[in-house]
């Protein structure tokens, strides 16, 4: 007579689960945000602070990738969908139904294995490397070492941004792909001749960043668009935000997040930008 008991226990457990589900809405408000894993730490940190300041309001932040974020916000299954790319850039998304909130800017830089020693590349050279025209560092003034390209996963935000501004429509060479920045950094650091690209905030002592066309990858150069490889970080809502979603977005735009949290995580506040760039790449200076 053990089994029926267990079954009953299961039933009770599931009922408890369901009632708990309803109780949550009574005991406090909560919203769910999913999407881009690059944006996750920022939104998570903001959400934590927000919950601490506003008792009974919970912001539940999950990763899953930009594609998941956009899919789910389109379905209306979540309150906010995070994305590294414009919704228009993804096939299968009705971008008109979504409202874009650009909360931060992130710069992306090529990174090299330290032993290569190349400090400066032109945009044309960079393009030649990633399309496979150049296959040895010797041709670029480095040691006699084959070039090992580490790409990001197809469709990932960093890769889309990089290919948009470096390859400008040319087809990238099939090469190794890695999903996460941490992995890319580790592989570039340990593989002779490796080259990849990542957000500024992830660059550390184990890898070498390079100047492109003589411009250094710094936040300052991104704000003036002298460093062209950057992108906005988007938080999408379906229709205009309401209620807690609206309050939370306002909080993300407030100086408590923009000036205090963003720089710590290596993002550039949107307000610091001296230019804006539209979806089709049109750059316009902001006149104060």
């Amino acid at each position, binding site marked *: 007579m053990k089994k029926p008991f267990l079954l009953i226990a299961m039933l009770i*457990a599931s009922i408890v*689960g369901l009632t708990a589900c309803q109780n949550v809405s009574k005991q406090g408000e909560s919203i769910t945000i999913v999407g881009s894993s690059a944006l*996750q730490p920022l939104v998570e940190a903001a959400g934590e602070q927000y919950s601490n300041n506003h008792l009974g309001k919970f912001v*539940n932040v999950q990763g899953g990738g930009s594609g998941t974020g956009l899919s789910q916000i389109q*379905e209306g299954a979540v309150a906010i969908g995070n994305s590294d790319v414009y919704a228009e850039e993804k096939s299968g998304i009705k971008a008109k139904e979504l409202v874009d909130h650009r909360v931060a800017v992130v710069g992306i830089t090529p990174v090299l294995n330290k032993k290569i020693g190349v400090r400066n590349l032109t945009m044309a050279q960079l393009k030649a490397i990633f399309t496979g025209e150049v296959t040895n560092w010797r041709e670029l003034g480095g040691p006699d070492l084959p070039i090992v390209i580490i790409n990001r996963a197809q469709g990932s935000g960093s890769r889309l941004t990089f290919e948009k501004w470096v390859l400008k429509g040319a087809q990238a060479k099939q090469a190794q792909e890695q999903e*996460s920045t*941490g*992995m890319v950094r580790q592989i570039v650091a340990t593989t002779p001749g490796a080259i990849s690209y990542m957000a500024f905030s992830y660059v550390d002592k184990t890898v070498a960043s390079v100047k492109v066309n003589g411009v250094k990858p710094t936040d300052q150069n991104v704000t003036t668009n002298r460093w062209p490889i950057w992108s906005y970080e988007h938080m999408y809502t379906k229709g205009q935000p309401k209620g807690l979603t609206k309050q939370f977005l306002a909080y993300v735009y407030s100086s408590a997040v923009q000036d205090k949290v963003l720089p710590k995580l290596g993002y550039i506040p949107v307000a610091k930008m001296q230019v804006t760039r539209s979806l089709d790449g049109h750059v316009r200076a902001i006149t104060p």
Partner: protein
Amino acid sequence: MNVKRQDKLATIILYVIAGAIILVLVALLAFILIQGLPHVSWHFLTAPARAFEAGGGIGIQLFNSFYLLVLAMLISVPLSLGAGIYLSEYAKKNWLTGLIRTSIEILSSLPSVVVGLFGFLIFVIQFNFGFSILSGALVLTVFNLPLLTRNVEESLASISHAQREAGLALGLSRWETVLKIIVPEALPGIVTGMILGAGRVFGEAAALIYTAGQSAPALDFTNWNPFYIASPLNPMRPAETLAVHIWKINSEGIMPDAVAVSAGASAVLIVAVLIFNLVARWLGQRLFKKMTSS
């Protein structure tokens, strides 16, 4: 003497193989423990994680892992017991049973990310459980059922037929025979399977990323009312487990001590699995003694 020499040789080879395996395993364990244990401290075990500063711990993740494990096993053990008993004792030997067996085996070879996405679309979105321990436990159940069911069936099948006949001869029903005689006899095998299953649950990351979530909100360890949102027992809160945490800090972690946290968390995970193994084995043995009165 050829045969004898062959026997000697084979024995030596087997010893070498066993030795090699132990060597590989010990090297692995030593690698993980030596890298990780120096970072483990009481603070590390109890403090909440930090997103982008050094000095974070794994307290909440550790608790989540255990809670999720308990919930998942609570659901999957009775289910797999029932299914295993049915397959080994009641199912007729025909094409339908064969089909069921095959499909269960195929289920076990699905990549966990597919199971995870299935769980995401069904439990998280469709059933509206949200990113929660409950969704995670259900997905782990799906993930674990094939292995457990197969294990139960096999353990039961290995019990000698005489035991069943003895039970039936005493006038017990088949169900009672299975429950009172066969299952206790097969318990050590079943427990081993459960431990293996639990180990997989503990180490699983891919299936949980989309279901139990990758955030660990602060918990209020003074409030054990399961309906309170920050209560540790609330099954509807998102819960990042230790394995997911390791995956997360290795992939997108930007805290300065990510490597140390990851190594420490891995070591803790292994020690936890070890403790869990020992306890489960001890419990299994006690249960075995009690139920078979041997």
